[in-house]
């Protein structure tokens, strides 16, 4: 589940593809299942058929917003200049792209397409739906081990080339903190003490919103990473650990203890509204991705700062975090394999990263060799934070099966936020559904 990057995109995604594209009554008629059958290859029609020409390569892009779309076009222009190969960019609305990925990959996908690291990437690789790009990695430089690990499939080969990422952290306004003399908390106790002080000062300590279902995943992720560590996160997401275990129960107990310092009535609020409460100096801080900066005016960007979520267990530390990585993958049978590899090598190169830095101030580039002198102070700090991380998680809905994340976890977390008392019953319900989903 991607984050809307702008108001326009947020509005656009209010209309589900099922309504925008299909006739509503088709659902009532029970055509849904068969619709999926007939729909196979729906997106594939968008692909270009000119692949036989050795001088072109096709790219499936999900960057449908004007700004990122423009950046992609510039990066691809750079590829044309350096290699002489023309890139046919096939842009599909971000949300539609994601919703149709199954059909897309089984139809006639573009030679190279955009996706993100995580469970889903490894799942497609294991199913043989995407191409092995280990040889491309042999030619890439400037990537940390964490990024290489995030690009590796279950069989130890690489299937993904990272391009950009953003960290999740606790954001706040410097001016507000200076006014009240707050200090960045280093431990959970300090955080709760700080929150108590903020309440006295008339602020909502931690802004919170979960109307769309995914923001609470960030809170769960960071608590789980701080309490049980990265490996447990990975195993839990892969369905190997039980949700009824004491470890998960501790996470929920801790979370329940923190809910009183979160903004109340989160289930009716969008992340934009929560972010605006920080922007309007009504809330003290907000745990969210770097994209929170979009809700701040240009003149307020310098006032925005963040810290990584404080340590809870000193044996676990506070060095792991969620930092979803976006990047590129290759189709299983690209029409021009040589050009597809060349393109992947280019998008993973320092030169391509430089073009992105120059044109897009809202992301961090994955290649450490890139010239990042164009970064804002916030970007630079974010890059340092991720660079110093021992482990990088991809965010709950990217680290586990999408069916589990969307049909089980979202309702369960919302239930928890609504009624944090019955943790035992909730976890049993999650575990029962998990068993059914992960064994199918």
């Amino acid at each position: 589940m991607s984050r809307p990057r702008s108001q326009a995109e947020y509005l656009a995604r209010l209309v589900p593809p099922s309504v925008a594209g299909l006739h509503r009554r088709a659902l009532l008629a029970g055509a849904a299942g068969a619709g999926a059958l007939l729909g196979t290859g729906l997106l594939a029609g968008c692909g270009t058929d000119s692949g036989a020409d050795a001088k072109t390569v096709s790219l499936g892009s999900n960057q449908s917003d004007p700004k990122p779309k423009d950046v992609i076009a510039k990066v691809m222009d750079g590829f044309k200049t350096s290699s002489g190969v023309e890139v046919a960019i096939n842009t599909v609305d971000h949300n539609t792209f994601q919703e149709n990925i199954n059909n897309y990959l089984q139809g006639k996908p573009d030679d190279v397409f955009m996706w993100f690291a995580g469970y889903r990437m490894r799942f497609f690789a294991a199913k043989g739906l995407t191409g092995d790009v280990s040889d491309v990695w042999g030619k890439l430089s400037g990537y940390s081990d964490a990024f290489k690990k995030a690009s590796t499939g279950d069989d130890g080969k690489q299937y993904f080339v990272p391009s950009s990422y953003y960290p999740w952290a606790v954001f706040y306004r410097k001016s507000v903190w200076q006014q009240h003399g707050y200090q960045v908390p280093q431990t959970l106790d300090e955080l709760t003490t700080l929150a108590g002080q903020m309440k006295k000062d008339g602020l909502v300590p931690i802004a919170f919103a979960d109307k769309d279902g995914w923001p609470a995943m960030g809170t769960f992720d960071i608590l789980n990473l701080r309490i049980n560590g990265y490996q447990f996160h990975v195993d839990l997401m892969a369905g190997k650990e039980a949700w009824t275990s004491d470890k998960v129960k501790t996470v929920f107990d801790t979370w329940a203890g923190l809910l009183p310092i979160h903004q109340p009535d989160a289930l009716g609020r969008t992340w934009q509204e929560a972010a605006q409460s920080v922007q309007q100096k009504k809330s003290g801080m907000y745990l969210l991705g770097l994209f929170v900066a979009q809700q701040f005016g240009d003149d307020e960007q310098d006032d925005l700062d963040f810290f990584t979520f404080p340590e809870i267990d000193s044996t676990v530390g506070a060095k792991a975090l969620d930092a979803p990585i976006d990047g590129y993958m290759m189709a299983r049978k690209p029409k021009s394999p040589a050009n597809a590899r060349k393109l992947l090598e280019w998008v993973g190169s320092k030169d391509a990263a430089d073009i992105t830095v120059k044109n897009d101030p809202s992301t961090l580039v994955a290649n450490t060799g890139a010239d990042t002198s164009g970064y804002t102070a916030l970007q630079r700090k974010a890059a340092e934070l991720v660079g110093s991380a021992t482990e990088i998680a991809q965010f709950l809905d990217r680290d586990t099966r999408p069916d589990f994340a969307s049909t089980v976890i979202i309702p369960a977390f919302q239930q928890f936020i609504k009624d944090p008392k019955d943790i035992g019953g909730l976890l049993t319900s999650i575990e029962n559904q998990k068993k059914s989903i992960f064994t199918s």
Partner: protein
Amino acid sequence: MRLLSRTDRVVLTLMVLVPLLLVVGLVWLPALATVLLSGTDWDGIGPLGEIDWVGWKNYDDVLNIYPPFVPAIQHNLLWLAALFVVATPFGMLLAVLLDKELRGGRFYQTALYLPVVLSLALIGFIWQLIYSRDQGLLNAVLGSNVDWYGDSNVNIWAVLVAAGWRHVGYIMLLYLAGLKGVDPSLREAAAVDGSSETSTFFRVVFPVMRPINIIVLVVTVIESLRAFDLVWVINKGRNGLELLSALVTSNVVGEASRIGFGSALATIMLVVSLVFITVYLATVMREGQR
């Protein structure tokens, strides 16, 4: 006996065959496929030959370990009751009032029908502006702090208001069209016989409007069974806004691709719809025989 010419027969055959193929291909086959898929654990990936048969497992899961299912059934029934008891009669009342040729009647008509015409995205946005907890119109005017969309005890009623808002306009227009078609001499005759306005409506006009009444009833039932768009734009049918159609969609469409499980939900929905359709058809056919 050659009542029909060759051309007639060809035309007749085509007229039967084409709709038949459309109905079979677009309604019956997909419905059948849904029922079949509901017995599998297909995730939308891989050839059809690899689909595993799991029997009743999906139904078992729906009934026993899927928390949103029971609320969804309840909300669908609540939806039906609210439209039937409040929105539909209100729409009919407005139609009767507008039929009186009030000054500015056109304006009211347009204003009331507007919600039906507006696009989904816009409707979601309009109600977000009204219901938003922190920035919404309603809380600002009332000075209250109600979490209209997030509080699962409140949000279904908030959405029913929005749904009624659309439904009233729809029913109003349908009914108004029907009222315009009623022979004025019937009313004049009733008036001459000394019937009051109210009794003229209930004893003369309403019975004459029987075909329209049935259409309105069917539209109400269909609207509440297929209710989907509003809850979907609000929060994808979660947290107090569960509806069968939204559950089917969130499981089948999109990345989740729990096609087997979602098909089981769709099949349950089909069965529920069939109950209403059967009742309706039985009534209509009995009428026809009379």
